[in-house]
């Protein structure tokens, strides 16, 4: 069977991701002291081999900060920073004046920290709302073409699910012209449980 989300289910999941996104953007704001905008929040369900349609710029050199997610749900959380966004973000955090156009070990360490904090803040909201306790692993930073990164990640997802549920958030620090995308991937088998808990919480809120 193929998984499909109804419009209502998509809206409900979007509500959940919006709350997660606002926590992640607040965390990024506190880390950098800059105003952070959320420009895209998207929920997508697709076969792993077709999931690339959500990403743009096949040959773009990108840096990813990636973590495994485990606990009540199995998944992967990662950030994508295209081109020079990676070291711009790292140096904004560390207030470094370094001008070299590559990631130094200090930049990498800063990015790992950003990844840990943002993933932690996103997943803690997710855990609370979806009623599934999830934690993330240590992070790893890889720079390569976007298609190699995404295809390899989809290969990992494909080892436990044929279909992938993707939550996408785009965060922008306009003053510094820095963009990052956060992706949370999981097997759609958890969708039902997440939806039930989200509905319950949303009702409580009202």
């Amino acid at each position, binding site marked *: 069977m193929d998984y499909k989300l109804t419009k209502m289910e998509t809206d409900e999941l979007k509500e959940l991701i919006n709350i997660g996104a606002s926590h992640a953007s607040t965390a990024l704001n506190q880390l950098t002291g800059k105003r952070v905008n959320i420009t895209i929040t998207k929920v997508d369900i697709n076969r792993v081999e077709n999931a690339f349609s959500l990403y743009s710029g*096949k040959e773009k050199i990108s840096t990813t900060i990636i973590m495994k997610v485990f606990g009540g749900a199995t998944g992967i959380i990662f950030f994508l920073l295209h081109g020079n966004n990676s070291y711009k973000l790292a140096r904004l955090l560390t207030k470094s004046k370094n001008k070299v156009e590559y990631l130094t070990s200090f930049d990498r360490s800063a990015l790992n920290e950003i990844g840990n904090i943002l993933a932690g803040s996103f997943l803690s909201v997710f855990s609370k709302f979806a009623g599934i306790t999830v934690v993330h692993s240590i992070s*790893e930073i890889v720079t*390569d073409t976007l298609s190699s990164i995404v295809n*390899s990640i989809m*290969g990992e997802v*494909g080892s436990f699910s044929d279909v992938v549920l993707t939550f996408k958030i785009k965060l922008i620090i306009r003053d510094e012209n820095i963009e990052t995308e956060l992706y949370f991937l999981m097997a759609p088998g958890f969708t039902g449980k997440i939806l039930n808990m989200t509905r319950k919480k949303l009702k409580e809120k009202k």
Partner: protein
Amino acid sequence: MGKIININIAEYAVGKNNLVIETSGIGSCLVICLYDADEKIGGMAHAMLPSRRKKNSVFNQGNTMIGKNNYKFVDEAIEGLIVEIRKIGGKKEKLKAKIIGGAEMFNIFKKKLTSIGKENERTAREKLEELGIPIDSEDVGGSVGRSVRFNLENGVVSIIVNM
């Protein structure tokens, strides 16, 4: 140079003479190129996983996937390519293989002694051996992505390592 065909993940292409087949974004995925030099006929498949999982897979719940989706799996991609190459006049006994990819891009996904990349490579070797197709050359493993261009005029495979 003749026509250029670009394939994506889980897709394949076959052809002859001056056709060029390209694919990119090869991380842990495995690209298999098969070539019959006498007929100048060959094909390329871009597979992402070694083989179908036995349990909890939609493929095992009555859904028979046909067409390009078969090429998601290394073992089925090799079988499928041979069928398609024979359809256009290539001979199985003349085929030689080149395999590219199977990188381990992320350390956090390594499982003790193996990884998706290594499993893809192992499955390809086993399947090709089973079918009696020799591996002419290979560029596998490592930790960076690759792009591949396969020229059917002369069977030359060009690899770009993305760093």
